[in-house]
């Protein structure tokens, strides 16, 4: 068992790569070889995660995904627990259908992040792409680098959420992430939704 599993993209991609099962809770029960054998698809071509990524570590519910991942879609989709950190930009559908755990994107994230989320937390340090949290029932998106707020979310208030302070302090200490003090102690707009599928999801938008 490793402290953390690191999955590193060997070379930047130009075509979209869809990954399946690349979640912290799934990886927690897999060996290095089994992680490398997780399914992926490049267009119509079926492939394995190990065809594009180097895998280091095994059987940990802490997963780091490293590289230029803008064209890697579906990371953390359906994740049910554990922690997954994307060291850079994330592609589309990150944390889609998530039911638990923590996903952190250190850069920007593509469209449809945390779509149909049921529970868990997604933190985005960069810009959050289109349609975040669409159809989500519960769970939190913490948007630190700008977001086009969906019209189906309504602003409840601007406040200092204590759990975000705890969470960001934890990320700074546990992962050494470069978290600004103003983010930790800052104020956030709390947007509640998704109204299209009435739920208790939230988007916390950092306002400084």
């Amino acid at each position: 068992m490793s402290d953390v599993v690191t999955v590193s993209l060997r070379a930047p991609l130009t075509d979209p790569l869809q990954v399946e099962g690349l979640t912290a809770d799934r990886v927690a029960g897999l060996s290095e070889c089994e992680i490398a054998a997780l399914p992926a698809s490049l267009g119509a071509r079926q492939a394995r995660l190990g065809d594009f990524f180097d895998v280091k570590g095994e059987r940990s519910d802490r997963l780091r995904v490293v590289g230029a991942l803008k064209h890697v879609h579906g990371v953390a989709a359906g994740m049910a627990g554990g922690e997954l950190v994307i060291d850079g930009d994330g592609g589309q559908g990150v944390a889609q259908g998530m039911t638990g755990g923590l996903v952190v994107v250190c850069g920007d994230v593509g469209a449809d992040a945390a779509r149909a989320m049921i529970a868990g937390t997604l933190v985005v340090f960069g810009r959050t792409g289109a349609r975040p949290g669409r159809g989500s029932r519960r769970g939190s998106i913490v948007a630190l680098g700008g977001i086009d707020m969906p019209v189906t979310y309504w602003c409840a208030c601007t406040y200092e959420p204590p759990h975000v302070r705890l969470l960001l302090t934890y990320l700074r200490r546990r992962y050494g992430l470069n978290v600004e003090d103003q983010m930790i102690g800052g104020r956030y707009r709390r947007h509640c939704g998704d109204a299209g599928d009435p739920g208790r999801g939230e988007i916390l938008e950092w306002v400084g």
Partner: protein
Amino acid sequence: MNIRGVFIEDTFAEGFSMAAARVVITAASSKWSRAAALKLTGFATSIIACKCEAAIERELTPDETPDGRPGISVLLFAVNAEGVKRRLVERIGSTVLTCPTTSCFDGLPDATDRVLVGRALAAFGDKFQSSTVVGGQRYWRVPVMEGEFLLQESFGVQKKAVGGGNFLILAEDAPSALAAAEAAVEVMDGMPGIILPFPGGVVRSGSKVGSRGYQSMTASTNDSYCPTLRLTTGSALVEGVNAVLEIVIDGLDADAIIRALRAGIEAACRPGVRTIAAGNYGGNLGPFRFPLRQIMAGGC
């Protein structure tokens, strides 16, 4: 044995088993974490009437707290884990939940025995509460008028905690006894893993088990150490001793109490103090014995 002319009696302090929790309170400033801690630990001097014993352990710097804010740690002792849980639910709910800007965390993360406190208290949120997991621990977010109160789900319980560590300061007069007690408290205050649950860390009304005259009383005055009764009871006091004060120590383990006893007794050996003794009940109260001379000789 003498320390600077103060006689150390050949006796032992008798401790008993307790269960304990450490509560970490953070707030926007140490003013508010302390305000909550003082209320949380109010009326918690003796298990006899207060159902628990609690006090502030020490102040915490932002680097030491889970959320990076100024904090304070509190130790709470009860007879067993269930008692710890009940007291935490009652007291955190009435004192920390209500206090502006505070959050409340478990201070014994490595303890394998745990009690669920957050879930019970989160019901104050009237089903508007929600939970989140950070670092493998669940926290409850309870909506309050100020914003949200954050509270950890489970608190570790130290089942091998010890209550009733003590020593007695037998002095020529009340001012000397008080000065010695204050000196002892000053060095013990803030030592890790212990609290001094009585006012200012000092007890003037040491008790014995049961009562001579009233069947319903579970404890009554320790007449052997009351100077006014020296000639009317089987007194433990010699002529010239006119005031006695007691320091009571609760610890997360016996070693923490030994360290505190050693430091406190050393500081209490001052002019005007005749003897350092200790309260024991012949071994009938609890399984822990803290022999004063052995401890002061560096043993134990």
